[in-house]
C-alpha cells in the first residue's frame, strides 16, 4: 500500500528505477528527520566587483521541492550553478549529499540532473540522439541508454518526435526534452532553472505534472522561478532571494499568512474611498497601484465581506492573498535589470 501513490504515469521507469533510490518511507523520514541534501553556509559568488550571491546559508532536505524565488538578477541561477559544480564559489561552504563541491564535483554531477534556463540541446542531433549522446557523458551503457531514452520520451510525451531534429521542435517540446535529458542519469537531485519560462499554459501544466511525479518518486527538487503560481503549486518550501541575499524563507502558505494575511480587498482608487478605508482598517496596509487600492490585513477571513455589505464600493473584489503579493511586498515594485 505505501507504494500505491508512486505507481504513476504510463512509464515503468518511475515504478522501477527511481524507487531504488527512495521509497515513501525514505521521503517521509528524510523530511521528518531533516536529512540534508544540500547545505550552504555563507556561500558567496563575486564577479569582479559585483556580488551575485552574498553570503547565503540554506539547507535543502531530501525529498522536498525547494523553490528559489526572486527577480531577475537576484542570484538564483548563480546559486544553482554552484550547486551543480559548474561555477566555483568565491567563498563559503557548499555540500551536496555530504560531498563538498570543491572535493568531489564529479560524484555530485553523477547524481544530479540539470535542466538549465537556456536551450542547450544539441542542434546537430535528433531528439533521441540528444538523449543517447548525453547518456554517454554519464558512462551509461548503450543498451541501458537506449532503454532509458525511449522510456523518457514516453514520459514527456515526445515519442512521435523521436527522430525529429531539434530545430523543428516548439519551445514547449524543447523544455520537455531538456527535462528528459536531465533525468537520463536517474538523478537523486534535480535542478530546474526556470523550467516553464516562455511556455503556454498547456505546456506549463504538463511540465508541472511531470515535476510532481518526480517528487513523488523521492527526487529532491530545487526549482528557480519567478512565477509565483508555479512556486505555490510545486514547492514545499520557498526561499525568496533579492540582490544576492535570501530575504525570507518558509512554506508558501505560511509566508502568505505572515506577510499579507488571508484576504486582499481591491477597489478602484478614489480619495474619499482611501480615507474611508484608512479609518475602517487602521492596522491594515494600503497599497495603491495605478488606479486600484489593495488592502492587506492580518484580520481573519470574512472581515472584508462584512465591510462591503455595509459600504458597497465601486469595482470592489475580494480575493485570496497569494505568493505574488508576498513577493511584491518583499522585493518591491522597482523594475530589475
Amino acid at each position, binding site marked *: 500500500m505505501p507504494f500505491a501513490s508512486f505507481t504513476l504515469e504510463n512509464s515503468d521507469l518511475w515504478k522501477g528505477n527511481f524507487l531504488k533510490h527512495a521509497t515513501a518511507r525514505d521521503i517521509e523520514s528524510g523530511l521528518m528527520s531533516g536529512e540534508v541534501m544540500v547545505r550552504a553556509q555563507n556561500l558567496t559568488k563575486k*564577479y569582479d566587483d559585483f556580488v551575485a550571491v552574498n553570503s547565503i546559508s540554506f539547507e535543502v532536505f531530501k525529498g522536498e521541492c525547494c523553490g528559489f524565488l526572486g527577480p531577475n538578477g537576484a542570484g538564483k541561477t548563480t546559486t544553482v550553478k554552484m550547486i*551543480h559544480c*559548474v*561555477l*566555483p564559489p568565491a567563498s563559503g561552504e557548499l555540500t551536496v549529499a555530504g560531498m563538498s563541491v570543491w572535493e568531489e*564535483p*564529479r560524484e555530485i*554531477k*553523477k547524481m*544530479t540532473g*540539470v535542466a*538549465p534556463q*537556456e*536551450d*542547450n*540541446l*544539441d*542542434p*546537430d*542531433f535528433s531528439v533521441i*540522439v540528444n538523449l543517447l*549522446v*548525453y547518456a*554517454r*557523458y*554519464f*558512462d551509461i551503457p548503450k543498451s541501458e541508454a537506449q532503454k532509458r531514452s525511449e522510456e523518457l520520451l514516453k514520459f514527456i510525451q515526445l515519442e512521435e518526435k523521436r527522430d525529429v531534429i531539434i530545430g523543428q521542435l516548439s519551445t514547449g517540446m524543447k523544455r520537455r526534452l531538456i527535462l528528459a535529458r536531465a533525468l537520463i*542519469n536517474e538523478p537523486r537531485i534535480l535542478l530546474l532553472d526556470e523550467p516553464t519560462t516562455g511556455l503556454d499554459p498547456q505546456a506549463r501544466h504538463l511540465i508541472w505534472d511531470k515535476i510532481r511525479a518526480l517528487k513523488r518518486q523521492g527526487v529532491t527538487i530545487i526549482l528557480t522561478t519567478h512565477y509565483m503560481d508555479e512556486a505555490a503549486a510545486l514547492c514545499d518550501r520557498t526561499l525568496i532571494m533579492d540582490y544576492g541575499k535570501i530575504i525570507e524563507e518558509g512554506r508558501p502558505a505560511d509566508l502568505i499568512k505572515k506577510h499579507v494575511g488571508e484576504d486582499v480587498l481591491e477597489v478602484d482608487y478614489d480619495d474619499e474611498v482611501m480615507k474611508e478605508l484608512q479609518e475602517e482598517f487602521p492596522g491594515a496596509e494600503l497599497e495603491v497601484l495605478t488606479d486600484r487600492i489593495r488592502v492587506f490585513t492580518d484580520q481573519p477571513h470574512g472581515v472584508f465581506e462584512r465591510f462591503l455589505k455595509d459600504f458597497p464600493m465601486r469595482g470592489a473584489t475580494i480575493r485570496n492573498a497569494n505568493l505574488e503579493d508576498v513577493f511584491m511586498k518583499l522585493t518591491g515594485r522597482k523594475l530589475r535589470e
Partner: protein
Amino acid sequence: MKRSSQITSRFALPKLTYRVWKVWMRNWTVFMKTYKVNFFPPLLEPIFYLVALGFGLGSLVQNIQGLPYINFIAPALIAISMMNSSFFECTYGSFVRMYYQKTFDAIIATPVNIEEVIAGELVWGATRSLISSSIVLGVVAAFGLVSSPLFILIPVVAFFAGLMFSAIAMCFTAIAPNIDFFNYPAFLLITPMFLLSGTFFPLADLPGFMQIIAKAFLPLTHAVSLVRGLIVGNLESSLLISLVWIAAVTPFFFILSINLMKRKLIK
C-alpha cells in the same frame, strides 16, 4: 607575485581522464551523420590545385630541387589540408559549439569537466587533420606523385601537426570576443603560412630574414618539410628539427589553450 601566479595558472596541467574520448565521440557522431559533405570537398580541392598549379603553372616552371613542379607542391597540399581542417575546426567550429549551440555548457553539467571538453575538441581537430590530409594523400597518390613508401607515416604527422594547429586555433577561440574576430588569424596567420612556408616555392628563395621567420615562427613550414621528406623519401637532418619543433610547440599550446578556455568559460 601576482604576475607569476597568473603565468603558472596559464600552464597548470589539465585534469584529464578517459572522458576526453566522450567529447571526441560527440563530434565524430555529428561528422558521420553528414559524412558525404565532409568527404567531398577535401577530395575535389586538391584536384583543382594539382591541375591548375601543377599542370598549368608547372608547365612554365623549371624543376625545383630536382622535382617537377607538380611533385614539389603535392606534399604542400597535404600539409595545407592538415592546417586548414584543424585550424578552422577549432576556431569557427569550436566557437559555434561553445557560443551559439551552448554545447560545452550542456556537457559540463555532466561528470565531464571543462578541461576534458577542450581536450576532446583538440583531439577532434587533430582527427579532422588526419581525415582531410589522408583524402588529399589519396588524390596525390592517384596522380602518381608519391615516390617513397615512407608516405605511410604521413597520417602520424597529420595527427600531431593537426593537434598543434588545433591548439593554436583554440587559443584564438579563447580570446575571440565574437566570431568575426577569426578574420584576423585567418588572414594574418593562415594566409601567410599558406603562401610562405615552402609550399609553392622553396624557402631558400625568400629573403634571408624571412627564411628565419618562416622557420622559427610558422608551424606550417615544419609540417610541409616533414610531409615532403616522407613523400619523396628524402630524410634530411633538418626533418629532425621540424619534428622537435612540433613536439615542443604542441604541448605548449595544448596546455595554454585549455587553461585560457577554462578561464573564459568558468568565471
